[in-house]
Each structure stands twice: as C-alpha cells, then as structure tokens.
C-alpha cells in the first residue's frame, strides 16, 4: 500500500515535468530563430539587437514573392478539394457503405501510411512517363490533395461520428430535397469540422515540400525556395521566412482556439466522458 502512495505522489510532478520538458524542446528552436530573425546578431541573439532589416529584404525579394503566390494557390485549392472530397467520403462511409465500411475506410486512409516522398515520386513517374506531362501546378495540387484528403477525412469523421442523422431524415420527411437538407440542416451543424479540415489542409499543402517539389518542375514554392537556400547554409532570411510562416500559423490557429473557447465553434467535444473524481 505504501508503495502505491509513493507512486501516486510522484505521478503528478513526473507527468507535468515531462510535459514541460517536451514543450520546451518543441518551442525552444522556434523561439530561438524567431528572436534571431529580428536581431542583427542572428546566430546568437542574446542579448538581441533588434532590427527589421531581414524582413524588409525578404519582402522585396521577387523570387520569394512568386513562391509565396504559388504556395498560397496550392494551399487554397488543395484545401478546398480535399475538404470537399473528404466530406463526401465521410458521409458515404457513415451512411451508405454498409458492410463494406472497413474496405472503403482502408482505401481512404491508406495515403496516411505511404510516405510523402513516395507519393511525390510515384506521381512524378505516372505524370512524366505515362501521361507525358511536364511539371505543373495542377498536378501538384492533385497530389497534395491525395495526402491531405486522409487528414481531412479523420478531422471531419470525428465531427460527423456523433451527428444525429435522424435530423436529416426529419427534414426529408417534411419534404426537403436532399440538397436543401444538406445546406439547411447538415451544413450548419457540421461546418466547424469542415472549417477545421480546410485550415489544417491549407497549412499542410502550403508548407509541403516533398510532394510538390517533384511535380512542379521549375515553379518555385516557399518550401522549395527555402530548401534551395538551405543547401548553401543557414542565412538570416531563412530564419525570417520560417518565423514569418510560424507567426501566421499561430495566429490562424489562435483565432480558431478563441472561437472554440467562446463556444462559437465546437469540434465534437464530449464533456460527459471526463473523469468524475479521484
């Protein structure tokens, strides 16, 4: 019994300690390069001598501007396409697949278990060799969609898993067409899941290197330009670029978090399952 008590006393500090060390490990590099990007002494900014020069140089660079445009295009179109397909697929799985659910589920989440570099390379072989297509934005978007689709499916499924389909049936009993039911009943209730999937897919496709790289040919994207520059060693503008993207990602997810916190958006929370008391 005494042993159990010691274990229980140690549990809390040990778990919280591990958590803190992991957060430190994850965020230390991000904070370090963030500080480096706004300092003159970028490689060891302690104490920092603040300057915005690196960001100004970055914003004037036309290569980075083109790359940013391409990355945004890939991100938005990939996110739209994967959210749409994943929404169809989730509803199909939950409502129409019947006893074939597991087979379809395996097909739909298989891309998660195939490495990004293999997705990129196999699409390159298929496009370049069998379809005689050169590098273009469109195939990069489609290949990214394959990857993001599975993530979107999982995010939307957590939301739709608890959706009460009798609401749809009720609407249809009262004479609504399937399309009208979707837009007036289903969509207003599930849009947070779709929105979450869209955001996550956008960020993933925007930052993707290994899939886009092989399908784009000479078209630059932000990650591929960063990769090219990184081959010649770390430079201050790489720190600035990484920090800039980090800040935007944190802002977007921060806004999402505030929406969730205030209850404007709910992502399939189940408070009744929380532990009652110890």
């Amino acid at each position, binding site marked *: 019994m005494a042993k159990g008590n010691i274990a229980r006393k140690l549990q809390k500090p040990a778990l919280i300690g591990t*958590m803190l060390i992991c*957060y430190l490990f994850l*965020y230390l590099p991000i904070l370090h390069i963030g500080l480096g990007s706004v300092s003159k002494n970028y490689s060891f900014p302690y104490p920092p001598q603040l300057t915005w020069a690196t960001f100004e140089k970055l914003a004037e660079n036309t290569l980075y501007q083109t790359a940013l445009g391409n990355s945004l295009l890939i991100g938005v179109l990939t996110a739209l396409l994967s959210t749409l397909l994943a929404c169809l697929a989730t509803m199909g799985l939950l409502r129409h*697949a019947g006893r074939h659910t*597991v087979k379809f589920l395996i097909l739909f989440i298989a891309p998660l278990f195939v490495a990004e570099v293999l997705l990129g*390379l196999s699409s390159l*072989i298929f496009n370049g060799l069998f379809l005689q297509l050169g590098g273009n934005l469109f195939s990069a978007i489609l290949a990214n969609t394959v990857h993001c689709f599975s993530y979107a499916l999982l995010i939307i*499924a957590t939301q739709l898993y608890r959706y009460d389909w009798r609401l749809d049936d009720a609407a249809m009993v009262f004479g609504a067409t399937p399309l009208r039911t979707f837009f007036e009943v289903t969509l207003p209730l599930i849009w947070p899941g779709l929105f979450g999937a869209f955001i996550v897919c956008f960020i993933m496709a925007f930052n993707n290197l290994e899939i886009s790289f092989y399908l784009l040919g000479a078209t630059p994207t932000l990650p591929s330009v960063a990769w090219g520059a990184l081959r010649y060693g770390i430079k201050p503008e790489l720190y600035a670029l990484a920090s800039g993207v980090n800040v935007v990602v944190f802002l977007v*997810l921060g806004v999402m978090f505030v929406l969730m916190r205030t209850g404007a958006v709910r992502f399939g929370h189940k408070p009744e*399952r929380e532990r009652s008391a110890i």
Partner: protein
Amino acid sequence: MIGGLRISRDPRAWIFLGVPSVFLVLLFVLPLVSMIVLSFWRTENYHIIQDWNVDNYYVIATAGAYVTFLIRSLVMAVIVSALCVAIAWPVAYGVIVYGGRYKLLLSLGFAIPFLTGEVLRVIALQGLLGPLGLFNGVLMALGAAPLRFIMYTNFASAIGLVYLYLPIVVTVIYLSLLNFDMRLIDAARIFGAGPFRGFIEVTWPLNLFGTLIGFALCFVPCLSATLVPRFLGGPSGTLYGMALAQQFGESGTWALGAAMGVVLFLLSIAGVLLVFRFVDLRRSGFTGFGRS
C-alpha cells in the same frame, strides 16, 4: 474494383463513395502501380528503356551501400518511433489528467508545430543543433568547447526526427485517451488494483490501437526521411529515403529509384501490418466505424 462490390441500391452511395474512390484510384493507386512497372525497366543515359528485368532489385540487394542505408533507416525508424511513443504517453496522459480546462490549448500546443512544414522545422533545428546554433552558442559563450556529437551525426538525425514526429504521436495518443472512459481506471482502483496494475491491465490495452496508429504514423515518414539526414545527418548519416530521392535528382536513374521506392513501400506496409498484428480490435475497445 468498386464494381465488384455491391454497395447499395441507393444511387447517392455511388456519388458519396464513388467519387472519392475514383479520385484515389486515379491519383494514388495508379501512380504507385506505375512506379512498380518502372522498377522492372531500366535507365540508360537518362533515357528509360522498356525491357523487363529485375536488375534494379539485384543492384539494391548486392550493392553494399543501399543495404547499409536501408538497415540504418530501419534501425533509426524503430528507435525514433519507440522513443516518440515512450515520450508521448506520459505527455498525453498528463494533458488529459491534469490539463483541466486548458486541455484543448495544451494539446493544440503540441499539434501546431507539426503544421509548420518540414523545411521550416529543419531550419529551426539547425538553429538549435548546428555549429552556429543555440546549444553550441551557449557553450561557447560559457567558454566551453562545442559538442561534436550533435553536429552532423546520426545522433543529430535522431533528435531531428523525434522533434519532427513527436507532435503527431502525442496528438494521436491524446485523441485515443480522450475517447477512453477514465472512469474505468476508477473502477479498477475500487476493486483494489494499484496504479501500475490499473495502467497495465486497463489503460494500456484499451489505448493500444491508438498507440500503434501513432507508432505507424511516426515509423512510415522516419523510414523515408530525406530532409533530416541531408541537413543534420552529415557524411555518414545518409539514410535510404535520401539515397532514393537522389536517384530522381542528381543521378537521373529513375528505374533504380523506382525499385528503391517499391522496396520502401513494401517495407512500410510490412512494418504497419506487423505492428497491427498485435492488436485485437475488440479488446482495444474499437467498436467499428460509425455504428454506435
């Protein structure tokens, strides 16, 4: 493939399930098949010649370098995935038990770095581990010698891979624990089980499925890592994925690269299947998808 399955008489089923299935078959399955086809051809002076042979596989099996890279990658992927699971469990459990109303924020805090992209995170890692990085900067500011073993070594690659994939493992185990009914632990405790026994007999087996998904989602990208070994691994740190990517870049030997890709694909699938052999879905509380 879909035609073989009689889904239902409802035509909507064909739209809901058919459109995504056709999409995946065209853009995911067919490219993989074409990679397999190419792996049986050969490349000569940057041209692909269509005569069927297994020379590419012979080269991979006999040229010592590829076998070394492959074994190094496998060892690296197993160690990194096991390490990630070992670190992620206490973290995810801690967030669930002690997170309280900040649970969501704490778990998002782990998921966010995963979304900022591999290149940018490798840049951040170089800022931490590189010759001009934070660790060595601190050491040199204190007047000590820089640490050699964290610059361009396999150890640095391992740190980098843990850094890259820890977030997804934590998130997956967190989601598994979130759906786990914590009252079961209380029940075990009421019936006299100690905390350790309760964990081994209740918590661990019921979350094994989620844990293994986390393991697999770390194992697969680690096995094919290209960026981390290139920028952190140094001269003796070449991993299989990096050698594979080079066949399509500098060396231009596409057919050999395709064969290496097939080997990598088969190994990932074998790894995932092996891992999931251990799970009894019923025992792990998995009740099926969408039939509550």
